[in-house]
């Protein structure tokens, strides 16, 4: 094998790739926020809702957890138009990521609800807290602390999953790397540089998440 690395041919595209990383990050953040909200609603319904709603929610969650993300987005992008729902590729990917993350975050947040310590609420009650006060001062801080690490992980997973958008022609980080590859044919250089971008992206995100976790929730941990 006598392959000579020629990063020179790729360097003109570094900013173009950085722009792709920015789009990937946006996609991840928006999908995470929507998925988190979906997950919160689904977890509440699963734990406290009426039976028919619970069955509907469980069907969605079980379906999503047991099918590949790629198939889910194919369905949204290629099959929904048959029912008159036409989405551009960015929106289809965003919705797919959010619905997928929603199912995972429903399971995560259910675990959070279940970890509520009845005894602490009782202690608050005997100290004369109102219901709102015990939720505000006891329940919510506890749930946030329990949920913070798994939700942080979920965010990192979503960030990686955004690369699927390339298949649908969305020009995020992987899509742009693919474009550069077809111009320069320097595959090794292009994809190793895009890998570095992903690593930078997730390390920066993890560092921020860990710092917030340590400061606000006393969660011990480090990026490495």
């Amino acid at each position, binding site marked *: 094998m006598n392959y000579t690395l020629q990063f020179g041919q790729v360097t003109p595209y570094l900013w173009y790739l950085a722009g792709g990383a920015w789009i990937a990050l946006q996609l991840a953040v928006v999908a995470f926020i929507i998925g988190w909200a979906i997950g919160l609603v689904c977890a509440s319904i699963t734990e406290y809702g009426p039976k028919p709603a619970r069955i509907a929610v469980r069907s969605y969650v079980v379906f999503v957890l047991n099918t590949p993300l790629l198939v889910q987005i194919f369905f949204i992008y290629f099959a929904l138009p048959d029912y008159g729902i036409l989405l551009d590729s960015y929106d289809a990917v965003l919705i797919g990521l959010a619905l997928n993350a929603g199912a995972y975050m429903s399971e995560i947040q259910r675990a959070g609800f279940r970890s509520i*310590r009845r005894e602490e609420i009782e202690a608050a*009650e005997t100290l*004369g807290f109102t219901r709102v006060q015990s939720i505000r001062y006891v329940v919510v801080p*506890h749930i946030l602390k329990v949920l913070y690490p798994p939700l942080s992980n979920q965010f990192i997973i979503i960030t990686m999953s955004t690369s699927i958008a390339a298949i649908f022609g969305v020009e995020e980080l992987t899509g742009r790397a693919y474009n550069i590859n077809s111009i320069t044919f320097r595959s090794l250089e292009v994809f190793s540089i895009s890998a570095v971008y992903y690593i930078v992206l997730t390390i920066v995100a993890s560092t921020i998440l860990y710092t917030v976790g340590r400061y606000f929730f006393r969660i011990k941990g480090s990026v490495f």
Partner: protein
Amino acid sequence: MPYLEIDNLSADYGKVPVLQDINLAVERGEIVSIIGPSGSGKSTLLRVLTGLLKPRAGSVAVAGEKLRYDSPKDLRRAREKFAIVFQQFNLFQNMTALRNVTIAPTIVQKRKAAEVEAEARALLEKVGLSHRIDAYPDEMSGGQQQRVAIARALALKPDILHLDEVTSALDPELVSEVLDTIRLLADDGMTMMIVSHEMGFVREVSSKVVFMADGRVVEVGPPEQIFDNPQTQRCTDFVSRILRH
């Protein structure tokens, strides 16, 4: 007129009757201990008194004033008079020792933060924890957590302190530090209702011992009577079984 008067109090969980016709009087400054086999309703009695469980019948009066259990507002008023400490400490895990003690006076009684904090520091010093003021519950031993829980209960300046098996979840070597704290409160004249299996301690601090079985008060008397000369067969059996080991 006794300070606390429990009159024909009954309570149940669902259909199962747990307390039946409890009558008990407690004078100010008295220390009343409740003993009895597991499942006899000791915790339930304290739960009713501290407003965690609504009684089915009967009444509780403090200084001649009947407590009302109907509205949440009435309940909150009752709870300011009655503090309780549980077997499992039940500290707020997301708060430091100091915050555990200051939170109720601050948000329930809406008192000034500086004043509340000064009192909380004094309370934590009293229970021997001035050096652990900024520690979180998961950074403290069981004995330390239980002493914080006692300080937290005292922060609202309750008229009566209820202690439900506060040493039962502790390693043996940590029991005495909590008992010492309770002795301090006894010396201050704090009115207390104590559920405990530490018979030596009960005998030492109690002005009155209540023996319960099957949701009823079976015998009440000074510790000498209950432990040395019980008047009922059930109490005799219980005490002889307990004191044998």
